[in-house]
């Protein structure tokens, strides 16, 4: 069964035909199911962001890419994809431009040609979802604090109610609480509203605790794929390409190295259970 995102043999190169040409992606094939929470991890320059932009129809690529049943080889399909696929870039607050927060969030929905009532409903819903108070609706987005700006920018994408949401390190530079709130919000969209999520991140704890499946990119190729548990069990391999594993997985590896009988684990609750079991066995 083809997924909502279906990629076969994808190649992307920058500056083709010049001495500075380089391949960003070489031979990627992957599929994401509807309602899935997919994490993409990899060291810097491994092509994660490029892959995300291909999925959003923002980059022309070689190979077969279909998203939401649309063949992205056709420019027309790429140009119309924004109605179904939302993408939140790194530092999305840099895209704010309107005179008020309300208008900025309404920019996408208005471009979709929705009625003004529907636009208002969606903007309010999005602002509530990201926890912005009603007082800021009429402020200039440039007057907000850093965290508020980020949330306003994210609301601008959520208000379009995308089927697929692509996230490129959406919480970089936020404080832990803001980070958790936003990640909870995205998880809820995925679990309750069946929004398909693709998250590019460096935060392995988030991957371990939230994602259904993980794709590991390395130098433009897929190095590994599977559930977080399967991936993080391969601690050595991940470290050899410059990635760290979450705390619980490190703990499991080092306990196993000491000859203690613990299972592979990736999340903190799992680690807690295992350690408790181990201690009980001793007592």
């Amino acid at each position, binding site marked *: 069964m083809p997924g909502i995102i279906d990629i076969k043999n994808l190649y992307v190169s920058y500056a083709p035909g010049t*001495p*500075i040409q380089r391949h960003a992606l070489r031979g990627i094939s992957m599929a994401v199911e509807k309602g899935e929470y997919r994490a993409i991890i990899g060291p810097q320059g491994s092509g994660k962001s490029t892959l995300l932009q291909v999925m959003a129809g923002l980059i022309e690529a070689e190979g077969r890419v279909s998203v939401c049943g649309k063949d992205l080889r056709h420019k027309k399909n790429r*140009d119309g994809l924004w109605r179904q696929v939302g993408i939140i870039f790194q530092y999305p607050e*840099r895209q704010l*431009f309107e005179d008020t927060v309300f208008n900025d969030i309404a920019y996408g929905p208005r471009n979709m040609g929705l009625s003004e009532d529907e636009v208002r409903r969606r903007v309010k819903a999005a602002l509530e979802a990201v926890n912005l108070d009603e007082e800021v609706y009429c402020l200039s987005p440039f007057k907000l604090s850093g965290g508020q700006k980020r949330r306003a920018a994210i609301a601008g994408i959520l208000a*379009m109610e995308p089927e697929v949401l692509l996230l490129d390190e959406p919480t970089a530079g936020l404080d832990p609480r803001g980070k958790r709130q936003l990640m909870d919000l995205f998880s809820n969209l995925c679990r309750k509203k069946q929004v398909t999520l693709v998250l590019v991140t460096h935060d392995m704890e988030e991957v371990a605790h939230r994602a259904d499946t993980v794709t590991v990119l390395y130098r433009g190729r897929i190095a590994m794929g599977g559930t977080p548990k399967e991936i993080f069990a391969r601690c050595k391999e991940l470290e050899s390409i410059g990635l760290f594993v979450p705390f619980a997985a490190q703990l499991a590896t080092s306990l196993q190295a000491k000859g203690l009988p613990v299972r592979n684990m990736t999340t903190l609750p799992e680690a807690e259970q295992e350690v408790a079991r181990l201690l009980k066995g001793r007592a």
Partner: protein
Amino acid sequence: MSLFSNITLGQYYPGASLLHRMDPRAKILALPLVMIMVLLADGTAGFIMSGIPVLLALLLAGIPPGTYWRGLKPLWAILLIGLAIQSLTYPGEKLWQWGMLSVSREGFILGMKLSYRLSLLILSTMLLTMTTTPMNLTAALEKLLQPLKKFGVPAHELAMMMTIALRFVPTLLEEAEAVMKAQQARGGSVSTGNLNQRLRASVALLVPLLAGSIRRADELAMAMEARGYRGDTGRTRLKQFKYRPVDIIVLTVLIALTIVVAADRWA
């Protein structure tokens, strides 16, 4: 791939050719000489004499001809319009007539001369920036302007301004592309829709770009101050420029050629 990757006009092209290795000061001095020569040249002999150094330089730079071609492409319209205006308006022997419009022989020749000169000017300027890194270019300019400091010319400040401006061109293009993509993902594409939609989309591009530039300028000023930037007082350079024989030869030949071309014109 990206919207801006096809801007070749004058972008540095890495290489190790004779032109790349010349002293940037010599290259900067050579440019006005070539320009004077090209502008003074009149008649077949003059055109050949002024064309040869540019042609030689183009061949010696080790840059594929296609790159020059792409660089000239945006200027085709200007060259053609120039040619058309000259041919159509200059009085003289009629070569071709269509209703009110007539092309004169003299006008056509004048137009061709104009296009030839313009192409040479553009190509030689392109060569300078394509074979010299922006860093070397501004450092050399500062060095050349040094003697004028006595007369109150802020050589260092001018060079620093140029360095910063050049340094931020790619950053700005990158940022423009990022913002463009972000807005495109919200349905604000600058390349589709009617005029009104495109205008609105360009506001959505320009406002964040401007805000970003101001933010960056602020950060840069702060970072420079934090590192004790005080203008050029007491500054030394890692890279010292040195004229080599080839630089002297090139400049001498160019000066000689310019004199010959000037003599040819007024003789």
